């Protein structure tokens, strides 16, 4: 049963390679117009968008590329893929259960295999994105400016788990749906982004507490990144708790999805 999911992820991989190829082609076309690397400030935040703000060079060149930037970019790309592949159980429910459930394996195992393949693929996309970003950087002979920042390994785990958590949320929201799974996943991104935005807004104490509570379950709340020295606002105070929370969201989402999917009827 893993083979069917492999065919799906293979298609996703081909799309990734094509997109990377297009980006690479654009990059080489624009290469003659490019200057030397400038000081860049990355913000990965609401809705998973990333923005790069060019700023005049200020510090030493070695500060230009903290390793975590690669992980943040890869986290966004992996989360997008997680959102897409987070509808895999719902897609089975859209007219294919009679085929899926007459395989010689239990429903639980079938669903777990599907989700495991999807998650492995999302992790693979994360790694490929890091490699792609590193390749572009190397092409500019800028890898020597790479700095292994203090939070690098925390950010590696955080952005990988963020994609997994988003996958879990998408599965939990759509596993019992036959149609409109894509719409639900799209709207959920917008809602998560709004909740993240509200956490920074000035709200009455009750609303602020409510938003803060809901954001414990919002993967995007764990996905902010800034190269600035200001302390990032994660839902929990320690690295370990933030990582554990992301892992818990992923596990809870997958468990809820499984419970719903097992109870469906073809």
């Amino acid at each position, binding site marked *: 049963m893993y083979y069917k999911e492999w065919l799906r992820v293979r298609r996703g991989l081909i799309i990734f390679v094509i997109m990377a190829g297009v980006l690479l082609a654009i990059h080489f076309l624009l290469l003659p117009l490019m200057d030397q690397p400038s000081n860049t400030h990355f913000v990965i935040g609401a809705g998973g968008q990333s923005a790069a703000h060019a700023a005049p060079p200020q510090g030493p060149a070695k500060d230009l590329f903290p390793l975590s930037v690669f992980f943040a970019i890869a986290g966004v790309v992996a989360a997008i893929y997680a959102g897409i592949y987070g509808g895999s159980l719902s897609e089975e429910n859209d007219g294919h259960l*009679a085929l899926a*459930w007459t*395989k010689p*394996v239990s429903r639980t195992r079938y669903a777990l295999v599907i989700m495991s393949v999807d998650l492995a693929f999302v992790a693979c996309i994360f790694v490929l994105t890091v490699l792609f970003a590193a390749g572009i950087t190397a092409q500019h002979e800028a890898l020597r400016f790479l700095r292994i920042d203090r939070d690098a390994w925390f950010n590696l785990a955080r952005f990988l788990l963020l994609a997994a958590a988003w996958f879990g949320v998408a599965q939990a929201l759509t596993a019992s749906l036959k149609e409109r799974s894509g719409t639900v996943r799209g709207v959920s991104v917008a809602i998560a982004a709004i909740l993240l935005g509200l956490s920074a807004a000035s709200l009455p104490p009750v609303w602020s507490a409510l938003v803060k509570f809901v954001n414990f379950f919002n993967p995007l709340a764990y996905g902010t990144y800034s190269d600035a020295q200001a302390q990032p606002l994660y839902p929990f105070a320690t690295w370990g708790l933030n990582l554990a929370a992301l892992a818990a969201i992923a596990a809870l989402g997958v468990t809820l999805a499984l419970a719903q999917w097992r109870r469906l009827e*073809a």
Partner: protein
Amino acid sequence: MTIQLEAPAIEIRTLTKSYGTTVAVNNLSFAVPKGSIFGLLGTNGAGKTTTFKCILDLARPTTGQAMFGGYPLRPDMFESISYMPEQPALYDCFTGRDHIDIARHSFAKFDATRAHNLVELFGLDLRKKVRTLSKGQQSALALTLAFATRPEILVLDEPSSGLDPVHQRNVLDLMIDAAAGGATVLFSSHQIGQVERAADHVAILHRGTLMLEGLVEDLKAEEKIIEATFAGDAPRFVELDANPNVRRVMRQGRLIRAYVTGTGDGVVAAITAASPTSMRILDQNLEDIFLAAVGGK
């Protein structure tokens, strides 16, 4: 799967399935003998597909259960049970080749040579994506997947739906061939001629209720048509309406036709008393039996 020889291949016990206040299948019980071809007949909405889904655990029965070879269904039994749903349930974005490969990776008993032969038989182009295939070609692909594992039990819901007459015949031949090899076939069809041609057992469902069940030959022997003509309009026989052996009475001008169970002696006597110009007793075919079972009197 080890199937006990003495147990029926499939046994349905007091199966009921309700959707809200609608009873789709009502207290259904019958057994499908091992090695038989068992046809399930019924009008649209009779509960055939729901029955299949319930026995294969694709839908939860309200009450009752199905046993396979004397055991409740377990997932590993699908290595020996093939199901072809009425809507083939194939993946639009995958090709026929992809589906064959998926099945090959899913079933230990998948027979690639058998699959290749079935693809040839149905003239399938495996390079095409499912979304580009006609309904008949999709059915043919689903049949290929169902038969390619050489299952011990085949459950086929409208297997010839959308197929041309040549391939409809092929499907009948495949079922007969599978049964000859010891497999059990449970299938539904709207085409009574096909059921009569292939099935040795039949059950007739009407609005979720089992109306008739048994060996086709026995049913035919039990069921008779008494046909009589009169000089004027055929008289109305009130006593026939009250006779439990009379399934249905049809009057049309000078002709009266009574569908009866058993010898129909009482009916013959009643009609003879009205002095018909002619009268004959005919064996019923499956279509007559079906219409009598679902049509009322």
